[in-house]
Each structure stands twice: as structure tokens, then as C-alpha cells.
């Protein structure tokens, strides 16, 4: 009797026999990774000026654009609140901006149901170009030429780094769909 190849019943997400997806991993990982992104102030990088991109927000964008429907429409409320606790922004700015972003993407998706990565990047860039100046204005730091000059490098860095974040999210998405739960 011929035997099957040992990898025959496996795919990139693990064994197809006796294993299934874990709901905790599949639904928890997006939330967890966005919250980790919001924790960048605890990185051992101490910046005299705002230079790092808003990683939590970019993670949210990447997850939302990669997997529509995975994050509920109200996800901006808890995730924004968590981001506010650490970002240094006045409490509520993340809640507002995260919620508005999710609603905006939802409306955009009705207009463009099928999208390519380039359109995703364009969307993310447009949202970041609005998000960073608005966040700077409502941070209470005052809006002037100096503040504007500070934002521009951060903005360019954020837009350029978005594909990297999207790539990380795509890898996390594969991890998310691993079949890890044993069916007995």
C-alpha cells in the first residue's frame, strides 16, 4: 500500500486533520498587536521631538484595510482610549480620531469595494496626512510654523513606513489563522 507524503495533509496554516483555528488567536491578535503599537512610548527611545510614526494608529489602519470586517466599527473607542493613556495626547483625542477613521474607511469601502495595495497605501497616506496635523492641533501644543515643521518629517516617515507595517500585519494575519486548537 502506498503511503501519503507526510506533508500531504498540511498547508501553511498547519495540519488540516484534527486541528482548527483558535478563536482567541484569530480575534484577539489584531487587538493585541494594535495595543502593542500604542505602547511605543515605553520603547527605550527618548525623543526630544515627535519623530516616531504613530504605530498604534498605523497598525489599526493596516488591519482594517487588510481584513475588512474583522474589527467592529466601534473598535475605535476602546483602542483609542488605550492609545490616549500612553500617547501623551489629551484623553479623548484618540477615541475621537480612531472612531472617525474607522467610519471614514467604512464609507470609502462602499465606494471602492475592491482595492489593491496601492489604493490601500494611498488611503492610509491620506488618512495619516489628516490625522497627524489634527492630532497636533488638539494636543494643546499650539499650531504654528514651528509645529508644522516638526510634523513634516514624521508625516513622511509614517507614509513611507506604512508598507512595512502592512507587511508585519500580513505576517501576523498568517499567525492569526494558524490551526492551533486540537479537536478531540
Amino acid at each position: 500500500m502506498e503511503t501519503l507524503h507526510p506533508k500531504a495533509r498540511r498547508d501553511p496554516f498547519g495540519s488540516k486533520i484534527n486541528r482548527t483555528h483558535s478563536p482567541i488567536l484569530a480575534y484577539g491578535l489584531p487587538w493585541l498587536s494594535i495595543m502593542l503599537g500604542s505602547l511605543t512610548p515605553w520603547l527605550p527611545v527618548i525623543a526630544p521631538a515627535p519623530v516616531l510614526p504613530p504605530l498604534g494608529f498605523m497598525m489599526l489602519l493596516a488591519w482594517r484595510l487588510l481584513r475588512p470586517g474583522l474589527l467592529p466599527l466601534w473598535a475605535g473607542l476602546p483602542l483609542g482610549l488605550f492609545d490616549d493613556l500612553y500617547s501623551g495626547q489629551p484623553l479623548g483625542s484618540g477615541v475621537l480620531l480612531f472612531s472617525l477613521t474607522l467610519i471614514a474607511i467604512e464609507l470609502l469601502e462602499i465606494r471602492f469595494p475592491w482595492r489593491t495595495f496601492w489604493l490601500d497605501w494611498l488611503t492610509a497616506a491620506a488618512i495619516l496626512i489628516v490625522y497627524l496635523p489634527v492630532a497636533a492641533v488638539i494636543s494643546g501644543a499650539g499650531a504654528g510654523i514651528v509645529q508644522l515643521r516638526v510634523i513634516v518629517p514624521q508625516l513622511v516617515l509614517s507614509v513611507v513606513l506604512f508598507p512595512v507595517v502592512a507587511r508585519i500585519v500580513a505576517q501576523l494575519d498568517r499567525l492569526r489563522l494558524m490551526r492551533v486548537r486540537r479537536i478531540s
Partner: protein
Amino acid sequence: MAPPAHRRTGTNKKAQMGLFAGYVVAGLGALFGVALLTISLLRPETFNGLRAMAADVASPAGEAGAAGRTGSQSFFEAIAGYYRAGSRNAQLEREVEIARIRLAEAEALRQENARLKAVLGLDFGDTEPVAVARLIGSTSSSMRRIGYISAGRSAGVTPGMPVVSPTGLVGRVLETGARSSRVLLLTDSESMVPVRRATDNTVAFAEGRSDGSLRLRLVNLGINPIKPGDVFVTSGAGGLFRPNIAVAVAREITRDGAIAQLLSNPAATDVVVVEPIWQRPAVEALASTPASTAEGEVPEG
């Protein structure tokens, strides 16, 4: 990727209502954000407890990271030392820089001594540090410049205390948690420190510009006496910071003062010292007067 099919509701009444409810909840979330934002802009101290608690939860990880930062730095420096003498050079340069700042501070002290010789019976005493802490992290993408240190209420830290590094003033404590505190860095646009030129009594205010530099504004307008390279130290006005802590060095001259470079770059700072409020009774008296600002930094006449 295409949106999932369950959002194309068709004539399914229940699905339509579900989708509508999603929009309503998200809209309410945004409104809730507006409400929170209004409260926190009008009364910034409202959510202190919440943030301090969150900072306490995350601080152990940050502390480990901070230890790793210095650890890895010395590790790589050791390796680099074998390959190039440049790292040694960099270290010496750093030492020279500190020595130069010390020299300016000593000069300021000498000045201060001469000025105060006449004032008899005035005892400043030694400032005993309240706590020694690590600078764990700082806000990275927000316009506000707020740092986190690894000492809180349990170490006796209270809001308003100056935070000082070996190279100069870093900021002052804004909120305290049990084991960590938030520090308003000097470069934050809300930060204002009374300073004077180390060599004479040209007094000014150092305001943060959120881009890593400070804006010096002279108190006595007239002919601007500042020259690039002048070192500014705290003047002690307002009672919050003790005099003669190095703050900044003037870089370019403006109409009413100068743009100054921060002396204690927080990025290069690891261990900081939390000092007591210099003139606590005076600051508290100011803070309790309803007419004065809560910051207690009213310029003296």
C-alpha cells in the same frame, strides 16, 4: 480584499438594523471622544489617576527596556572599541562636554555667591535628592513632550518636583503613580522655566518648542544682549527649581531673545535625580492663592 458578504444586507431587515446599529455605536464613540477631549482640555488634571495607573502597569517592561538600552549601548561600545578608537574619542568628547557644562555652572555659582554675599542669614541648605530614577521612555509621536520615570509616590515624588540629569535640567514631575511618574520635558510647549545667563543677571523665560529646542524670551526688553553660545541656568524665580541648574545654550538670536539648544538631551539621559521643590512653602502659598496660576511659576517683579 473585498468587504465580507455579510455587510451586503439586501432585504434582510435584521442585518440592516445590525449594520445601522454599528454606525450608531461608532458615531456615539466619536461623540464620547469629543466629550472626553473637551473635559481633558478644559480640566487637564481630571484623568490623572487613570493615566498614572496605566503607567504603573506598563512601567516594569519599560524599565527592563531602559536597562537594556544602557546595557546594549555599553556592550556595543565595548565591541566597537576593538575595531575603532573612535568610540573612545566619543566618550572623551562627552566628558569634555560635561566638563564644559560644569565649568559654566561653577561660573554661575561664583556669580551667585558674589551676589548673595551681601544677603546675610539666608541658608539654602543642601538639596537632598528625593529619588534617583531611570528615564524610561517618552511620548514618541504626539506633539506633547512627556517622559516617564521609574519613581513614584512610594519614593516620595510629588507633582512639581524638578527632574535633573548630570548634564542639566530635564523637566518637572507632572503626575505621579505609585511606582512611576510622568515628567513634563523642557521641550514641551507648556513648559516654561525662569532662567538667567550664567555670566550675569540677564533673566529670561525658556519655553519649549516641541522640536527639541527652547525659545528664550527676555524679561527686560531692549537691546538684546544674548550671543550665540551663552549658557543659561535656572534663576530660582518662582521657587520651583533651585538656582544654577544648567538648562540650555543659545544657538541663534531672535528679536526678543534666542533659540536655545537643550543641554540635557533626554535621548542621551539614563539616570535622573528627582529633587525637592526648592521653595515649597512659597510655591504652595502661590498655588493656594486663587488669583495665581496652578503652575506656581509667576514671574517675580
